[in-house]
């Protein structure tokens, strides 16, 4: 948290992003987003537009995307709102990256349930691949952060990489996922435990067993 800081507004940054503008497709999307809010309340659209902008920046430089100051200014201008209010929003939410980031943003959950289920091993696996907390690898492929609970405790330990979650991890899974991503392949998302689909109980259901294959009326048994 406290490590977050805005990328300084340097002439180089201005030169790179000063001419930022929506692509034709995103311009259309931005229009749709703004139209969701009543006239005069267009600044409500700041969060989706920042997300869109982050994705466009990501697409342009083939990273997860981040928000350079000129891009925030562009959004502020479009929504006719003071730039400081946009910066407030962008700095508040951690899913907006406010400094350059790698191709894959590896966010390992280190909160209690994940820790109990072995997130330390996951972190060790990442470290073994050369990832360093708060840093991007030299090839620009992976940025690594340890985050707090992402709400996937039933399938802990988990990691979020860009828009996808990878759950029920082992150190080997983690290594494999990183390797596949580096090789340009899309690993299986969601749970990595064999035989598990979502977050159903491991080893089969222990309650409501009669309902697994067909509907069953339990009321008479109470």
């Amino acid at each position, binding site marked *: 948290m406290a490590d977050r800081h805005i990328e300084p*507004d340097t002439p180089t940054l201005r030169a790179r992003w000063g001419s930022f503008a929506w692509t034709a497709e995103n311009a259309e999307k931005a229009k749709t987003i703004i139209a969701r809010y009543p006239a005069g309340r267009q600044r409500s659209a700041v969060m989706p537009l920042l997300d869109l902008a982050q994705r466009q920046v990501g697409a342009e430089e083939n990273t997860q995307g981040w928000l350079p100051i000129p891009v925030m200014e562009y959004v502020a201008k479009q929504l006719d709102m*003071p730039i*400081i*209010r946009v910066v407030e929003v962008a700095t508040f939410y951690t899913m907006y990256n406010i400094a350059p980031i790698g191709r894959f943003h590896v966010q390992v959950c280190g909160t209690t349930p994940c820790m109990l289920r072995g997130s330390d091993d996951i972190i060790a696996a990442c470290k073994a691949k050369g990832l360093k907390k708060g840093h991007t690898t030299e090839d620009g492929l992976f940025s690594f952060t340890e985050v707090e609970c992402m709400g996937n405790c039933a399938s802990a330990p988990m990691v979020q990489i860009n828009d996808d979650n990878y759950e029920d991890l082992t150190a080997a899974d983690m290594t494999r996922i990183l390797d596949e991503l580096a090789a340009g392949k899309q690993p299986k998302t969601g749970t990595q435990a064999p035989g598990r689909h979502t977050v159903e109980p491991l080893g089969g259901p222990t309650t409501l067993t009669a309902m697994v294959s067909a509907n069953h009326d339990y009321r008479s048994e109470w």
Partner: protein
Amino acid sequence: MPKLKVDGVELEVPAGATVLQACELAGKEIPRFCYHERLSIAGNCRMCLVEVKPGPPKPQASCALPASEGQEIRTDSEMVKKAREGVMEFLLINHPLDCPICDQGGECDLQDQSVAYGRGKSRYDENKRAVTDKYMGPLIKTTMTRCIHCTRCVRFSEEIAGVDEIGALYRGEGMQISTYLEGAAKHELSANVIDLCPVGALTSKPYAFEARPWELKKTLGIDVSDAVGSNIRIDSRGREVLRILPRVNDDVNEEWLSDRARYVVDGLTRRRLDKPWLRKDGKLTAASWAEAFDAVAKINPGASVAVISGDQVDCETLFAAKALARALGSSLLEGRQTGLAYTASNLAAVAFNSTFAGIEEADAILIVGSHVRDEAPLVNTRLRKAAKRGAKVFVIGAAWDPTYPATFLGEDAGLLNDVPAEVVAAFEGSKKPAIIIGGAGLAKGALEAGLAFAERFKLVTDEWNGFNVLHMAASRMGGLMLGYAQPGGLADLVAAKPKMVISLGADEVDYTKFAGSMIVHIGHHGDKAAHAADVILPAAAFTEKDGTYVNTEGRVQYSERAVYAPGDAREDWTILRAMADALGVSVGFDSFEQLRAAMIAEVPALGVEGLADYGALPAAPKGAKAEGVIAAYPIKDHYLTNAIARSSPTLQRCSAELVHGETFAEAAE
């Protein structure tokens, strides 16, 4: 009108009041940091917790809780005491214990309230958070580690000043208050955040490490940097004024003060005229008072005298000079230094009749030739309030940034004679229409055309007077009341070719027009007039004399002396009294009391504090037309509008950095 009980005492509070206000009405002190009467409610400091029944069995933030019928509020229970102690302990967790080196010490809300409501001991022995200081310009010194995130500064700049430039970045423990990209706070009211800050996070840069509040003598004064007549408190120690703070007056400045009024302080000790000077062979040489008066006596002008008053002169000085001129047989008095010559026979036509508090209620406003933000920053905040309530604002004149939505009609003053359809529509449907004519408008004949406009759209009714003239000089209304206006303006004085011209701190006059006259300058700063003067008699600045000032509304206010004038300088009236002796005439007063009594006898309104009654507006003269182009406004640099401000290093720096965009390297620490 809900009835409720506070600590067992039943009382009725106005509808819409909060629990905090109810407690205050009951005479209970509620500690607070984020709550401020003039800002929106944030509810984030939690210091104002009280116990309220009915409601959840936990303490409630009273600032954000509406008072309602039948509530039982306790501010003295064990729960409240514990809650306050708890909040205070949390606030102090990350607050540094640097009171001994903090400028807020002695007037710090956190310090006072931790003494009154805190536990007296900390249980916290972890590391404290530290935050890097932010640059906020030449006026605001920041120590952001001290910040308790009350967001008063953020709300002030957004709501009152109308310049969104301060924000709260990041979140939680990492939250930081900062201007955008740590740029300087650029607006004309920026230093008010220093007063608002309940801790020492934002303090005054020029005043840093100067004094402790308990060392200061506090004098009630009136600001003379513009015609608003802001109420100020002059804090002085020994012979020096150390700072100027606003005083609360809801009718005038609420509790704000413009930066240029606040920071003239260091101008008061620089470039001062502290001894008499005489021009000998084209060069000014220091002299004694006796030599100076001999020189004045030698001029021996008889009745060929003219008096020009400056912008910051008090009524007593104006009257003393008038009495002297009268004793000599002259009535050539003028205060409009730049040559304006509007009709001043009816003072109602040259006053801000709506009053500042009243203009907030206007629902259609036409501004003619006034850059209100530069000319009267605290009137602009009122206009902003009006605009927020839905008033339509139109401006005739060059475009400027008003901080609220306004329609700029164009630069042609003639638009006032025949206003566009949108203005007609707005004013015809308006209940409280108003016109504000500024200096640039007066120069184009907007006064008479404005009167015609007032008649056409019924700006004056029994309850409402929407005809306003916004002056820029603190001495203007007082001067007009005392007859400092010739029908032809300054040109009449030039045409009279007086043998002697007395300048009362008149620094804006083009003295080349008075080439044949001896110029006696009674002023306090070595500014423009001193360069042209033949005799300089050093006088007192506004902090160094008692005086009466009349603001542009016609509000008579008294200012008191905080310190004595430096060196050989004397109070203005004593100089004029001594000049009378030197010239061998009698002015009829020997003491300040006699002078004031004589002044009040002549203009009784000056003896009554408050709004002077100027009677009804005159009828608009037939066929009066405003003509010309209002392409610029008189104030070119809103930090350097007067001699004191021009002498102030702080305001020079503000001007260079904020107006002219020069960059200054910060000293490395």
